[in-house]
C-alpha cells in the first residue's frame, strides 16, 4: 500500500513538474505570439487571395503550391480544414491539390512549427516543414494520377466558389501588423547572443530569494543531464501572470462581440507585461535578484509599441475585434488540451524506461522508423500535444529519424481524420492516402535520420533520387493506364 502511494505521488510529481517547467520556460515567448499570429492569419488574410488559385481551371504548377499555401496560411483549425478540403476536392482544383492541402495543413501551420522549433529545435522544425512540403505535393500528385478516372464528377461542378469576386490582397497595415507579430516571435525565440545577453542589469536586494529557489528545486527536482528543466523564481511569477491573463481574458475577450471594455484593455496590458517580463533574464543570487535587460526585452518592447500604434490608428475596429476573437478562440481550444497533455506526458515519463525506447527506436533503422509511424497512426493526440510527446521520446533516447517519422505521421493520420476523409472522398482513396502517408513518413524519417547521423549529402541525394525514381515509375504506369482508358473512352464516343 505504501509503495502504491509512493508510486502515485511520484507520478503526480512527474506530471506537475513537467507542466510547471513547460509553462515557465517555453510557452510564453513562443506560444503567446504564435496564438496572436494564428488569430491574425485567420482574421486578416482575405481568403480569396489564396483560394482563387484553387479553381478547377488552375494549372498544376499553380494549384499545388496554392494548396500548400492555403494549408499553412488559412487552415489553423479543423473548423477550416474540413470545408476547405471538401471545397477544393468537389468544386475546386480536384483530388490532388485537396490532398496536398490536407497533408500540409496540420504539419505546417504556424502554431505547430513554432512549437516544434522551440521545444525540440529549429532544425527539426525546418526538416518537418520542408519534408512535409515535398511529400505533400508528391502524395497529392500520386493520388491525382492513380484516381484520375474518378475525377470526372468534379467536371460537372461550377467554378464560382473559387472565382475571384473581389480578390483584394491584404491591406498594407494588416500585413505590417502580422509581420510585426512574426518579428516579435523571432525576437523572443531566436538564441542569438545580441538578443539573449543582458545589456543592462539591475540588482534588487531581496533577502531570501536563494532559499526560495532552493525550495523550488526541491519541489520540482530536475536533472539537466536528462534534458529536464526546473522552475525558476521568474517561472513562478510567469505562471501567476498566465493564470491572471486567463481570468481577465475570460471577461474581456470572451465577450468581445458585445464591445471593447476595460476588461479587454486590462487583458491586453497584462499580455504585454507578461511578454516583457518573460524577456528579462532574472537570476537569484545570494543577496537578491539580478535583473538583466536583454536585447530581447528592448526588441519586444519596440515591437509592442509599434503594434499598439498600428492597432489604434490603422486597423478598423472590426479587424481588431475579429483578430482578438480568433486569437482567443485558439487559446481556448488548444491551451487546455496542451496543459492536460503535458501533464500526462510528465506522468508517462516516470513509467516508461529509456531502455525500451532505445531498443526499438534508438537507431535510425527501418524498424525504428516504422515503429514511429505506427505509434503516430494508432495514437490520437489533440492538436500540438504530439510535440511534448516527441520531446519525451527524444529525452528517453529516441533517434531523431524515427522521431521525425512519428511527428510526420501523427498529426496527419488518426482514426478521426481517416473517417472524415473517407466520408468525403470514399474508402478506396482514403486508405490509399493512409498507405502513402505511412510510406512517405517512414522515408522522411530515414532520410532525416541519415542526415543527423552524418551521412554525406551525396549519398542522401542518391537515396532521394532512388525514391523519386521508384515513385516516378509507379506514376508512369498509373498514368499510362489512365490515358489508355481515356482513349478507349474517346473511341467509344
Amino acid at each position, binding site marked *: 500500500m505504501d509503495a502504491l502511494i509512493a508510486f502515485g505521488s511520484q507520478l503526480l510529481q512527474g506530471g506537475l513538474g513537467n507542466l510547471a517547467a513547460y509553462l515557465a520556460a517555453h510557452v510564453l515567448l513562443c506560444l503567446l505570439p504564435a496564438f496572436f499570429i494564428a488569430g491574425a492569419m485567420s*482574421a486578416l488574410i482575405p*481568403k480569396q487571395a489564396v*483560394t482563387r488559385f484553387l479553381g478547377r481551371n488552375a494549372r498544376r504548377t499553380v494549384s499545388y503550391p496554392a494548396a500548400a499555401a492555403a494549408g499553412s496560411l*488559412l487552415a489553423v*483549425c*479543423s*473548423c*477550416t480544414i*474540413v*470545408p*476547405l478540403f*471538401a*471545397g477544393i476536392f*468537389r468544386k475546386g482544383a480536384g483530388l490532388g491539390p485537396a490532398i496536398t492541402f490536407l497533408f500540409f495543413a496540420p504539419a505546417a501551420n504556424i502554431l505547430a512549427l513554432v512549437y516544434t522549433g522551440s521545444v525540440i529545435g529549429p532544425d527539426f522544425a525546418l526538416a518537418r516543414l520542408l519534408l512535409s512540403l515535398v511529400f505533400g505535393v508528391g502524395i497529392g500528385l500520386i493520388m491525382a494520377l492513380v484516381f484520375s478516372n474518378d475525377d470526372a464528377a468534379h467536371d460537372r461542378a461550377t467554378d*464560382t*466558389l473559387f472565382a475571384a469576386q473581389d480578390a483584394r490582397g491584404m491591406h498594407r497595415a494588416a500585413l505590417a501588423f502580422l509581420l510585426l507579430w512574426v518579428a516579435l516571435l523571432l525576437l523572443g525565440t531566436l538564441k542569438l547572443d545580441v538578443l539573449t545577453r543582458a545589456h543592462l542589469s539591475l540588482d534588487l536586494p531581496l533577502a531570501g530569494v536563494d532559499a526560495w529557489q532552493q525550495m523550488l528545486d526541491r519541489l520540482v527536482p530536475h536533472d539537466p543531464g536528462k534534458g529536464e528543466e526546473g522552475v525558476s523564481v521568474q517561472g513562478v511569477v510567469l505562471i501567476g501572470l498566465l493564470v491572471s491573463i486567463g481570468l481577465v481574458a475570460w471577461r474581456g475577450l470572451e465577450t468581445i*462581440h458585445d464591445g471593447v471594455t476595460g476588461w479587454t484593455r486590462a487583458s491586453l496590458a497584462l499580455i504585454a507585461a507578461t511578454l516583457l517580463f518573460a524577456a528579462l533574464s532574472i537570476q537569484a543570487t545570494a543577496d537578491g535578484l539580478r535583473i538583466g535587460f536583454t536585447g530581447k526585452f528592448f526588441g519586444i518592447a519596440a515591437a509592442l509599441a509599434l503594434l499598439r500604434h498600428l492597432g489604434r490608428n490603422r486597423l478598423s475596429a*472590426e479587424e481588431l475585434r*475579429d483578430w482578438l*476573437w480568433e486569437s482567443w*478562440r485558439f487559446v*481556448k*481550444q488548444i491551451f487546455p488540451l496542451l496543459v492536460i497533455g503535458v501533464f500526462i506526458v510528465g506522468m508517462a515519463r516516470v513509467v516508461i524506461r529509456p531502455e525500451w525506447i532505445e531498443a526499438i527506436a534508438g537507431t535510425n533503422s527501418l524498424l525504428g522508423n516504422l515503429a514511429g509511424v505506427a505509434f503516430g497512426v494508432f495514437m490520437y493526440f489533440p492538436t500540438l500535444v504530439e510535440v511534448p510527446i516527441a520531446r519525451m521520446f527524444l529525452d528517453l533516447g529516441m533517434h531523431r529519424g524515427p522521431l521525425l517519422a512519428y511527428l510526420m505521421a501523427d498529426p496527419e493520420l488518426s482514426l478521426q481524420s481517416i473517417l*472524415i476523409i473517407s*466520408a*468525403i472522398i470514399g474508402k478506396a482513396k482514403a486508405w490509399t492516402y493512409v498507405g502513402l502517408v505511412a510510406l512517405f513518413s517512414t522515408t522522411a524519417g530515414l532520410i532525416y535520420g541519415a542526415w543527423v547521423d552524418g551521412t554525406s549529402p551525396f549519398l542522401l541525394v542518391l537515396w532521394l533520387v532512388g525514391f523519386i525514381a521508384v515513385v516516378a515509375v509507379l506514376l508512369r504506369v498509373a498514368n499510362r493506364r489512365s490515358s489508355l482508358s481515356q482513349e478507349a473512352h474517346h473511341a467509344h464516343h
Partner: protein
Amino acid sequence: MLTIKVLGPGCANCRKLEQIARQAAESLGIDSQIVKVTDMKDIMAYEILQTPGLVINEKLVSSGRIPTAGAVVDWIKAAGQAG
C-alpha cells in the same frame, strides 16, 4: 416566417454565431426559426469554404467570420423586405 440557418459542425464560432443570430432576431421581434446545419454534405450544398456560415431564407449572407449583431439585423430586415 423567416428561416435562419447556421452552417457549421459545432465549433466555437458556430455556437457564437447562433447566439448572435438569435439575439438579432429577438431584438427585431420577427417570427423566425433558427436551424443548425451540422452535416458536412448539407453545409457543402451552399457556396461556402469556411465555417461558420449564415443563411437567411436560403440566401448565404456571410461565411468564414462572425458578423456583428447589427449586420445580422440589417440582413434580416433586407430579407423581410425581399420576401
